[in-house]
């Protein structure tokens, strides 16, 4: 990706990741839509031999040779037995029956995680720079499990199984389903056994935000990643005939519009259809839109597809207005005619102008790529939010990473808009979603795995979380674009990832498979569910004379639930020193608006004399009665001379 390495400070941290600047023997497995192996992101110059013990390979297909594999792309497989059983044979006129990516998504995510550095990358001139994966020296193996008709769990499970036996160190899955119980969720089932084998599993949280309780992949042995913006934007200015000027975004790179204002019309007024404002196929009356800039509303059909509709009807340009569903969130698109996306407020004002002015006019000016945008990051409105409906006592998402307008490598089968009629072909594309933030974390996990070969998946996740930041340099909280207010731990978990700190976190919250087993007992799993999820049929996994509690799972964050009448809740945690000897002092506070939650930590000082040493502490939360559904938030921080170990607190009155 371009800009993300700088934004994350990775350009300054080669010294911090000495071993993982090689990071050469870490393998990232990506389950997605496959790979376009000819892209330079899979160039293997400077890489050593394929890691010993690797069992993966490039499977053959009508358009994919085993020679596609090299020392960067060390595996590419495809799985379609489940898909074809459900959907019938793959239509090879549309899709490759091979590991080849005909969609673009898998090439984008795998090159984001571990693509080699590629100079001169851009999309139609936008976001230019050197595109690098998060772990540019790690190896990549792709497992194609997603086809035009979806991604089926029987294929996903088989691919996860094969990836583990091939020998991946990190599994990256930018896909999800509804919120099923863990033992019925195939990704959670596969991830559990992968975790037991020391494999780090990161998944996208989902794009169902900003509503509450919308996230996927919430199992505690999975790292669940939300999306935030970069400090980069692609502004386009819409100037109306009444002199008003509005900022939007666009990746349009074709012939510019004339600087003189052009006639402006609202699509709802240029159609015979009741849904004419959406600029859907065949809905616009050519005589009414010819040579004009058309104002379309977002929704129903794809954003860039609306541009095709306007262009086909003879329109000269398009302004695409957000509705309430997307508010002020602006996602840049590679429009095929001079087009720009604008927020809901601007859209509403433009609509009123177009409908009331006797001769409405407009012009669009494209301003290219701007960097240094502030505030950044902000939480993407689409990023799915907690609480974790399967286990409210586990705070999810875990953290956020860049997921808006991310440039990375793309398929050669499809244009930048992904629409069939888009005949353009690009080597890189800019797209948005928690699909993009997940591979960022997968690649960062690969860097940490290379720097700390002995760290468990939980320790890697802990390091990424406790060093995340939840505020800007000026102390204000990271904004949520959906509310314009500071985000809460239910939006961002621990906050935004900060790899330069994660490599030296000071303390980690480690979790073993046995701890997760205790967690399953705490959520009252019976022998069948435990056996189905963990593959171990141990009838007495949950001992009758022990008490189990979700609050005992050594998670790097806190989710506290009180009855509406208020009460107390105790959590226990154990931290492992992975840094210098030192003494840590705790600060902890939480509140629901102006109502404080009492947070007391015992002991309040922890002293470590050597690396690997473990110390435990107890946190007691207490609160008065509050209306059911009230949320409170806070943070628990252990600080020493050299390290800050932060954990978010979310409190809910049920």
């Amino acid at each position, binding site marked *: 990706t371009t800009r993300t390495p700088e934004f994350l400070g990775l350009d300054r941290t080669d010294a911090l990741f000495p071993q993982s600047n090689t990071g050469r023997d870490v393998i990232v497995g990506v389950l997605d839509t496959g790979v376009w192996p000819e892209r330079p992101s899979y160039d293997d110059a400077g890489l050593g031999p394929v890691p010993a013990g690797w069992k993966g390979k490039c499977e053959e297909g009508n358009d994919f040779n085993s020679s596609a594999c090299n020392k960067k792309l060390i595996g590419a497989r495809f799985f379609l*037995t489940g898909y074809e059983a*459900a959907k019938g044979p793959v239509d090879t006129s549309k899709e490759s029956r091979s590991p080849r990516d005909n969609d673009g998504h898998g090439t984008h995510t795998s090159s984001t995680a571990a693509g080699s550095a590629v100079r001169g990358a851009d999309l139609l001139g936008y976001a230019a720079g050197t595109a690098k994966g998060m772990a540019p020296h790690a190896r990549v193996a792709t497992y194609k499990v997603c086809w035009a008709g979806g991604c089926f769990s*029987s294929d996903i499970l088989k691919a996860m199984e094969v990836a*583990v036996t091939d020998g991946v160190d990190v599994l990256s899955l930018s896909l999800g*389903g509804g919120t099923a119980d863990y033992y019925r969720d195939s990704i959670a*089932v596969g991830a*559990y*056994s992968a975790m037991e084998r020391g494999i780090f599993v990161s998944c*996208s949280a989902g794009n169902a935000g900003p509503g509450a309780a919308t996230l996927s992949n919430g199992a505690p042995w999975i790292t669940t990643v939300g999306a935030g913006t970069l400090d980069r934007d692609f502004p386009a200015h819409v100037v109306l005939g009444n002199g008003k000027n509005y900022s939007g975004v666009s990746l349009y790179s074709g012939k510019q519009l004339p600087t003189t204002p052009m006639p402006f019309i609202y699509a709802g007024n240029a159609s015979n259809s009741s849904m004419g404002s959406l600029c859907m196929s065949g809905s616009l009356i050519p005589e009414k839109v010819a040579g004009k800039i058309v104002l379309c509303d977002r929704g129903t059909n794809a954003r860039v597809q609306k541009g095709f509709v306007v262009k086909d009807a003879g329109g000269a340009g398009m302004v695409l207005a957000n509705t309430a569903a997307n508010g002020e969130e602006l996602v840049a698109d590679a429009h095929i005619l001079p087009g720009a996306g604008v927020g809901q407020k601007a859209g509403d004002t433009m609509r009123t102008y177009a409908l009331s002015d006797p001769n409405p006019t407009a012009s669009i000016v494209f301003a290219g790529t701007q960097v240094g945008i502030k505030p950044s990051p902000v939480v993407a409105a689409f990023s799915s939010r907690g609480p974790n409906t399967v286990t409210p006592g586990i705070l999810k998402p875990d953290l956020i990473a860049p997921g808006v307008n991310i440039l990375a490598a793309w398929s050669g089968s499809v244009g930048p808009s992904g629409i069939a009629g888009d005949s353009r072909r690009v080597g890189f594309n800019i797209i948005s979603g928690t699909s993009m933030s997940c591979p960022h974390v997968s690649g960062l996990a690969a860097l940490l795995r290379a720097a700390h070969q002995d760290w468990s998946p939980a320790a890697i996740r802990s390091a990424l979380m406790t060093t995340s930041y939840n505020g800007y340099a000026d102390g204000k909280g990271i904004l949520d674009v959906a509310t314009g207010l500071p985000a809460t731990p239910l939006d961002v978990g621990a906050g935004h990832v900060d790899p330069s700190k994660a490599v030296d976190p000071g303390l980690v919250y480690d979790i073993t498979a046995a701890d997760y087993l205790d967690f399953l007992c705490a959520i009252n799993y019976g022998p069948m569910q435990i056996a189905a999820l963990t*593959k171990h049929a141990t009838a007495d996994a949950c001992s009758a004379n022990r008490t189990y509690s979700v609050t005992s799972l050594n998670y790097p964050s806190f989710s506290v639930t009180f009855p509406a009448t208020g009460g107390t809740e105790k959590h226990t945690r154990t931290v492992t020193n992975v840094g210098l000897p030192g003494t840590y002092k705790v600060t902890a506070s939480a509140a629901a608006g102006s109502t404080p939650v009492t947070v007391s930590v015992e002991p309040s000082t922890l002293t470590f004399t050597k690396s690997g040493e473990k110390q435990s502490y107890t946190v007691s939360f207490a609160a008065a009665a509050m209306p059911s559904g009230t949320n409170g938030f806070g943070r628990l921080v252990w600080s020493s001379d050299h390290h800050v170990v932060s954990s978010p607190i979310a409190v809910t009155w049920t």
Partner: protein
Amino acid sequence: VRDERKTYIVHMARSAMPNDFAEHGEWYAASLQSVSDAATVLYTYDTLLHGYSARLTRAEAEALESQPGVLLVNPETRYELH
């Protein structure tokens, strides 16, 4: 609807394999055969879970669930890219 075939993921208790089978794949196929003449195994799993996936009618799935050694017959899920 009861006769429509869908894919299910069948979780098996590995240690429950009867002695008269040499290896788990045979046991899985036999367990499937006992509820359906038409169904075939799509995949067997042995690293991240023990079991297999197969196309079953709902009636066959229910019959299978009550068989010894069968832990769970889980309907396949369709996941979406994010």
